[in-house]
């Protein structure tokens, strides 16, 4: 039985999120509060072990449905010390104890927000929580997906429900044409700069418009991934043909053909008269490659204005930009070139599948020829836990999502950029836009 059967009620004026909330409502204990049923409760080894231990201490070492729980060790893998080994062990033992089949340990593991979508776990209309703020990535599939704390996760594991204040929807209508060398990462940085770091707090950002319609799933995931950097609960894109094509290998048993799936997904689209808190038009024509310059993700300026800022490390990976398209773009920039001797280059393909594909396409050879270290799939460096922590005073051009003070290591500075800009900067030894965007005679 397909999950989406087209019956989403007749009420008018609803956004995607409102339709999903209606469909999943368990309780409305108070005005503006909804307790919703969860389709997926996703877990990693950093925020889940304390929930597991707490459930055990309460005598409630149970899970609501082992098939709806997905778990991965991704933040520090392989374990770097006894503490991280213990966190992995707690998650691993728990997954075995409860028969959680979709548990991904070393050899099969990858960055959660890249791994779970490619396994087909995230579907249009789903509700997903995870003890990770970048869970908003999954909205790219037309799911409502929100990062939560360990207590919400704990109740999710036990009861399969979560409470939310009904979020308002902010619609961002993205139009225009992207210039060469400008990518989804630059688009979302420009949107965060416009909204501010709390411009979307308690809101879902619904991304739409011709540019989103033309985006691949990978690009949509990059877009939705950083919704939380503007405070957003979730970024969300209406599911369309691109979504159907991406998910087809997983859903083909549910629908007669792709058209039937597309029709079912269309039921999720916002009503023509949907009520938005706000609608903003965002034209990306003329947008340049961007970078952050401070310790807040809304501190953004053109890379052009930062040329000459020396870097010590270039990092390509993470749930924002560690997917195959990102690796292709970066490798294209690096082909036949070498990174500056003063720069450490690290690339972490976000999942084993991406790693294997990059290997098959010859991309990893390009990275290695250029002087990059190819790391295993892990979140490690992005949050300064392992596999590329910065020393005090060091600077990193990173394709990640947070430039907070100390994020990749105490006293380190992180410049958030696209994979192309990270690669170009690695070669230059300082922040530099992708070669394709440069004119003859530009500063290199």
């Amino acid at each position, binding site marked *: 039985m397909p999950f989406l059967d087209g019956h989403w009620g007749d009420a008018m004026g609803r956004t995607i999120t409102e339709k999903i909330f209606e469909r999943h409502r368990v*309780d409305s204990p108070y005005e503006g509060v909804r*307790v919703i049923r969860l389709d997926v409760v996703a877990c990693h080894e*950093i925020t889940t072990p304390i929930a597991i231990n707490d459930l055990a201490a309460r005598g409630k070492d149970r899970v609501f449905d082992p098939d709806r729980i997905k778990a991965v060790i991704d933040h520090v893998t392989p374990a770097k010390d006894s503490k991280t080994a213990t966190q992995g062990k707690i998650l691993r033992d728990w997954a075995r104890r409860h028969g959680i089949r979709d548990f991904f340990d070393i050899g099969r593991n990858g960055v959660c927000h890249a791994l779970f979508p490619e396994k087909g776990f995230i579907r249009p209309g789903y509700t997903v929580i995870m003890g990770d703020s970048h*869970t908003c990535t999954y909205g790219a599939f037309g799911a409502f997906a929100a990062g939560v*704390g360990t207590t919400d996760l704990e109740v999710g594991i036990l*009861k399969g429900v979560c409470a939310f204040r009904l979020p308002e929807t902010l619609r961002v209508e993205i139009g225009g044409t992207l210039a060469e060398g400008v990518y989804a990462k630059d688009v979302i940085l420009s949107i965060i700069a416009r909204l501010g770091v*709390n411009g979307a707090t308690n809101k879902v950002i619904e991304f739409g418009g011709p540019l989103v319609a033309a985006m691949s799933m990978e690009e949509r995931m990059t877009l939705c991934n950083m919704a939380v950097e503007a*405070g957003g609960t979730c970024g969300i894109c209406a599911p369309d043909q691109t979504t159907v094509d991406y998910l087809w290998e997983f859903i083909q048993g549910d629908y007669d053909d792709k058209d039937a799936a597309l029709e079912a997904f269309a039921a999720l689209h916002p009503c023509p008269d949907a009520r938005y808190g706000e609608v903003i038009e965002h034209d990306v024509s003329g947008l340049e490659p961007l970078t952050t310059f401070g310790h807040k993700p809304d501190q953004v300026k053109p890379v052009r204005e930062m040329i000459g800022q020396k870097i010590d490390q270039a990092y390509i990976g993470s749930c924002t930009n560690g997917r195959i398209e990102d690796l292709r773009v970066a490798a294209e920039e690096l082909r036949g070139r070498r990174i500056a001797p003063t720069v450490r280059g690290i690339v972490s393909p976000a999942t084993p599948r991406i790693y294997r594909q990059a290997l098959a396409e010859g991309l990893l050879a390009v990275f290695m020829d250029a002087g990059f270290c190819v790391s295993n799939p892990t979140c490690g460096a992005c949050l300064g*836990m392992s596999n590329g922590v910065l020393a005090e005073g060091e600077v990193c051009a990173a394709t990640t999502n947070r430039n907070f*003070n100390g994020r990749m290591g105490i006293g380190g500075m992180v410049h958030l950029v696209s994979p192309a800009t990270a690669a170009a900067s690695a070669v230059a030894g300082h922040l530099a836009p992708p070669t394709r965007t440069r004119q003859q005679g530009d500063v290199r």
Partner: protein
Amino acid sequence: MKNFGGNVLFLNRSDINTDEIIPAKYLTEITKEALEPHLLEDLCLEGFVPGKSTRDKQVVITRANFGCGSSREHAPWAFEVNGIHVVIAESFARIFRQNMFNCGMLAVELPEEVIADLFARFADRDTRLATDLGNTTFTLSAQDHSLTVPFNLPPFDRALVEAGGWVEYADAHY
């Protein structure tokens, strides 16, 4: 219910993020108690000394968008194990705010001008705060000066505080 009063720590900056409240390197701990020495360890703020400024404080008053960034509940826990159960701000990041109430603690928003007034009157004095949950008021006092301000506590958040947190509430209802 937890204790919702005591000495006030003023943090005069917006956008204090979860990495500043508790750096990611401590996320490898598997007990809340282990976080105790590391509260606000990476916060760079004039006059703030990590480990010292938080000593014997039970309340935090700060500016906008407090707790932005990560979903880590280690941030509220770091406050909890230091005996700080109340954070008052102009606004909060959603997950941090929810995590506070999920732990049975208070994350209360006051209007920008009220926060500004509290900073002007009390920030450079030894200030105590008492919470009256029944009347939803805070009373701040320093030497001979005292001020009572009303606050809003949505019914669901009150229910969580009274239940002792979301696990207890959910257990009773679902």
